[in-house]
């Protein structure tokens, strides 16, 4: 394995896992579920994605690489949706924003509204 | 014996059963003439056995048979000596009369056909019993008699008393049968012999074997229950709930004598020991006295006769127990005599019941003019029963005293017993034969009369027989008494007694008996009331005891079952795991199958430990989860941890599957939870928690110990090596695991997908089939089905 690739891989590994760690940290530190979602859905996805691509590169075989890319694409596609669903659900059920929150323009009928699905 | 008789004997033995099958049909065809038709069956049987008399008289035995269950050394083989033959003749002979009598007695009864087939079945069983040679064949027919008697006693099944009596008979005699079975198997074990004939001929001294007492007790258990010995006599009087033909046939003439037959059969093998000569006379004597005393108490003719039957059986047992030649002769003669007069008297009682509409001896009288023929038969039988000449009973009684009268206090005592017993039987006999017929005329029904021939033929014939047999006693002795006594005694015996008895002690004793009898007869009423008061004061009898036994048994079972089957899952689980702990730890410690102390694995990387730690955390979180979702999510955590562990240890397929499955489990859990208001929080009290905790910890420890022990063994890799070697070249697969799944061990997977499939369908049916109203369990009943 040539040095360049090795360096790339190493960097991606560190960066990716670092991002993941930060996201996890955000999970701990941020005040309410909505803010935490920001951390998870962004840093989390990106982190693991990077590491996955690193694996693809390191393998040096196009098939694996394409697969890892496809995988990442899939994450990027799903992450916002899950975040959205979770946010919508928690809001609908009535989990309130943290007290730090400044505005809430969500129509009142949305809060505590029981979705029929 | 030549081939034809051989096969005919078989046919004759099966004939009653065959007839039993067709009896209902025949009854439908021949209506009230069926009796005449069916009577042919016992007649044929009688004739067949009658032809054996010459051989038997020559002192030979008729044997033969067919293979039945060679694999278990059981043959359908017969062994006919004097004893068997006499019984066979009594059974078939009286059988003829009973069949006819039934025709008269149960005329118009809707289930007459069924009755016939029961009676015939019983006859077949009884015949099989007395001729059977191999133990198990004997036992089969023994139990068959119990079963048929159960059916006959319960024939009038609409009345609770009959049902009770039937069950009682079945329980007592059937239970006794189990003793007998054990006894016979024990004999088989000790001697290795499976046939009576061999047992009798063999020179094995059972009496010396250490199991003798056991065998004796077991065999007596069988005999005493069947022959209604005190204190197990109570079922017999209750059996009088059966139609009178049954009482006359089963419960006086034949079945109840099966026990006596057994004792007589076994006398040569088990007899002639102190135990035998103490136990039998004691039980027999007691039964004799108790039976007569209870008989005196009764006013129902059938009951009076029933109790005297009990006492007669006691007398027979007592005599058999003495085992002197004379005693045995007496037993033989009395057995024959009793079958005749008691059978007759029962039929008489039945006839009176049938005509006058009651069996209460105080409610009927003066029937002599209305029913002269029956009266004749009655008085004759009574005389025979009382042991007066010129009837066969007289010979029997003479021989009894001759047999009992020996020097010594023991015989003397029993002589007295016999005198009292005979005296009271004298009373009963005449009470039944005279009271209904003499005195001023009274009867619940309008002008009773002798009725159809079928109704009086039986008693008359039997009465006549008791006379003839007495007159031609020589012939009888030659063909019946001698061979039978010989068979019982196990050595040649000759009977001499005739209507002209030798002047001696026996005669004197009979005179005493008669005097006592006459006196007693005059005071019958007084005695009855006395007995009544006595019984009142006692207030308890084995009969009531039976009810208490059954009730107690049921109550006890109920209580016990409530304990072992409390209907609560958590108790079931607890027990299960406690048993598990025992099953693992006890052998482990007892047989020292504990592992060596394992060394801690030092080569574990940090992240491996972290993952294991996460698994543990997840597990604990599941336990301590405050709400269901936490529990579920924690479940997911430990699942992921397991998957990662699989991956770390080189099982990608596993971790792949594990990830999928865990997530799906969590998902469906969530989907279901959506609808449930459940909380997984532990509501267990601290106490139970501690108990459960310790149970689970103990079980887990046991598993771990075993696992350590196993992993410390050298491992045989052969299979895996094989798979690894041939996976690619032959099975064309690089992923060994998958190759194993679909090729090497494809059959497992095949079954596994069947499981998945069924689970899917089962869940579907669970979700889809819903009953609108929640219905209670019994709703499985079709009745409720209708309501829905």
């Amino acid at each position, binding site marked *: 394995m040539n040095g360049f690739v090795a360096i790339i891989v190493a960097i991606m590994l560190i960066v990716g896992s670092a991002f993941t760690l930060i996201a996890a940290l955000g999970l701990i530190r941020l005040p309410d579920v909505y803010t935490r979602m920001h951390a998870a859905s962004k840093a989390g996805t990106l982190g693991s994605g990077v590491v996955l691509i690193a694996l693809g590169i390191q393998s040096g075989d196009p098939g694996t690489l394409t697969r890892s890319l496809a995988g990442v694409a*899939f994450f990027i*596609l*799903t992450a916002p*949706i899950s975040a*959205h*669903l979770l946010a*919508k*659900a928690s809001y609908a059920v009535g989990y309130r924003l943290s007290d730090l929150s400044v505005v809430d323009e969500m129509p009142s009928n949305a809060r505590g509204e029981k*979705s029929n*699905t | 014996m030549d081939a034809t008789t051989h096969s005919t004997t078989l046919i004759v033995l099966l004939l009653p059963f065959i007839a039993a099958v067709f009896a209902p049909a025949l009854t439908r065809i021949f209506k009230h003439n069926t009796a005449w038709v069916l009577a042919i069956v016992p007649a044929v049987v009688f004739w067949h056995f009658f032809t054996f008399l010459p051989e038997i008289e020559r002192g030979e035995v008729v044997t033969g048979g067919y293979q039945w269950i060679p694999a278990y050394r059981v043959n359908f083989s017969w062994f006919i000596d004097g004893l068997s033959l006499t019984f066979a003749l009594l059974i078939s002979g009286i059988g003829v009369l009973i069949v006819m009598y039934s025709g008269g007695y149960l005329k118009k009864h809707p289930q007459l056909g069924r009755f016939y087939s029961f009676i015939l079945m019983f006859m077949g069983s009884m015949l099989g019993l007395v001729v059977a040679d191999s133990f198990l064949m004997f036992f089969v027919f023994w139990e068959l008699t119990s079963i048929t008697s159960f059916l006959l006693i319960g024939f009038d099944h609409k009345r609770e008393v009959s049902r009770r009596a039937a069950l009682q008979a079945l329980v007592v005699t059937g239970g006794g049968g189990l003793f007998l079975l054990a006894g016979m198997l024990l004999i088989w074990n000790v001697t290795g012999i499976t046939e009576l004939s061999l047992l009798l001929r063999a020179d094995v001294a059972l009496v010396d074997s250490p199991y003798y007492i056991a065998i004796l007790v077991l065999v007596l258990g069988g005999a005493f229950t069947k022959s209604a010995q005190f204190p197990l006599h109570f079922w017999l009087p209750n059996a009088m709930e059966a139609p009178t033909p049954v009482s006359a046939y089963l419960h006086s003439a034949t079945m109840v004598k099966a026990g006596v037959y057994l004792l007589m059969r076994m006398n040569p093998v088990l007899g002639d020991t102190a135990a035998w000569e103490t136990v039998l006379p004691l039980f027999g004597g007691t039964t004799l006295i108790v039976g007569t005393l209870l008989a005196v108490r009764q006013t129902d003719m059938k009951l009076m006769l029933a109790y005297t039957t009990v006492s007669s059986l006691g007398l027979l047992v007592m005599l058999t127990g003495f085992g002197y030649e004379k005693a045995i002769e007496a037993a033989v003669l009395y057995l024959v005599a009793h079958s005749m007069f008691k059978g007759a008297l029962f039929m008489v009682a039945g006839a009176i019941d049938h005509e006058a509409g009651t069996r209460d001896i105080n409610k009927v009288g003066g029937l002599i003019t209305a029913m002269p023929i029956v009266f004749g038969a009655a008085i004759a039988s009574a005389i025979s029963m009382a042991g007066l000449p010129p009837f066969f009973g007289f010979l029997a009684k003479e021989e009894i005293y001759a047999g009992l009268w020996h020097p010594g206090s023991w015989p003397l005592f029993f002589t007295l017993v016999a005198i009292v017993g005979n005296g009271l039987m004298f009373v009963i006999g005449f009470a039944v034969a005279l009271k209904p017929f003499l005195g001023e005329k009274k009867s619940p029904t309008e002008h009773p009369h002798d009725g159809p021939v079928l109704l009086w033929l039986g008693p008359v014939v039997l009465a006549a027989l008791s006379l003839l047999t007495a007159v031609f006693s020589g012939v009888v002795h030659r063909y019946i008494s001698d061979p039978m006594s010989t068979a019982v005694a196990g050595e040649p015996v000759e009977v001499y007694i005739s209507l002209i008895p030798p002047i001696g002690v026996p005669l004197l004793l009979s005179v005493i008996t008669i005097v006592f009898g006459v006196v007693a007869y005059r005071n019958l009423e007084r005695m009855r009331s006395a007995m009544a008061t006595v019984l009142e004061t006692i207030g308890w009898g084995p009969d009531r005891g039976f009810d208490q036994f059954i009730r107690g048994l049921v109550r006890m079972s109920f209580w016990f079952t409530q304990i072992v089957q409390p209907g609560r899952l958590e108790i079931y689980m607890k027990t299960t795991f406690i048993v598990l702990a025992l099953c693992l730890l006890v052998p482990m410690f007892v047989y020292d199958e504990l592992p060596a102390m394992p060394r801690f694995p030092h080569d574990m990387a940090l992240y491996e430990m972290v993952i294991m730690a996460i698994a543990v955390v997840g597990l604990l979180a599941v336990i301590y989860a405050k709400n269901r979702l936490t529990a579920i999510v924690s479940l997911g955590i430990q699942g992921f941890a397991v998957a990662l562990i699989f991956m770390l240890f080189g099982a*990608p*397929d596993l971790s*792949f*599957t594990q990830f*999928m*499955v865990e*997530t*799906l489990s969590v*998902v*469906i859990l969530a*989907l*279901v939870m*959506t*609808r449930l208001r459940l909380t997984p929080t532990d509501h267990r009290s601290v106490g139970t928690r501690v108990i459960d905790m310790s149970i689970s910890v103990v079980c887990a420890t046991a598993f771990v110990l075993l696992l350590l022990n196993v992993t410390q063994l050298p491992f045989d890799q052969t299979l895996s090596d094989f798979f690894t070697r041939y996976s690619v070249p032959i*099975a*064309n*697969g*690089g*992923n060994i695991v*998958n*190759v194993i*799944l*679909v*090729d090497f061990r*494809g*059959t497992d*997977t*095949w079954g596994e*997908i*069947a499981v*998945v*499939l069924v*689970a*899917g*369908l089962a*869940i*579907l049916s669970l*979700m*889809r089939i819903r009953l609108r109203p929640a219905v209670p369990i019994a709703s499985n009943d079709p009745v409720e089905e209708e309501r829905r």
Partner: protein
Amino acid sequence: MRTLIFRTVAPYLTSLIVVFSVFVLLRGHNEPGGGFIGGLIAASAFAIYGIACGVSPVRRALYFHPMGIAGAGLTLGSLAGLLSVFERVPFMTGLWYYVPIFGQELVLSTVLLFDIGVYFVVLGSITSIALALEERSND
């Protein structure tokens, strides 16, 4: 839960996942995967579809009743095992046929058939379970 965003994206997700599942199924013999995992993946695809767009579209999409599919899968698996009777070899013996197409060699085998049977059973049963639960919790 029919939110516009989810509903719009779900079908594409589903199709992607199903493709992936078939891929996993087919390469299972040489690398991790196989009928069972493939089936699970496909099933979860339909589960997502169901959650996003409701049960009935899934049912219509599948056309057959899931349990029917599962039954067919089992029959297929049994068939795969039974084929060996014609070769006078025991049950479940792997038979390989090589069919040349486009100058390439297309490899058909009973084990593959069997694995496909597994795939369908798992797909059918799990989907049926998921849909049943989904329906229940919807009414």
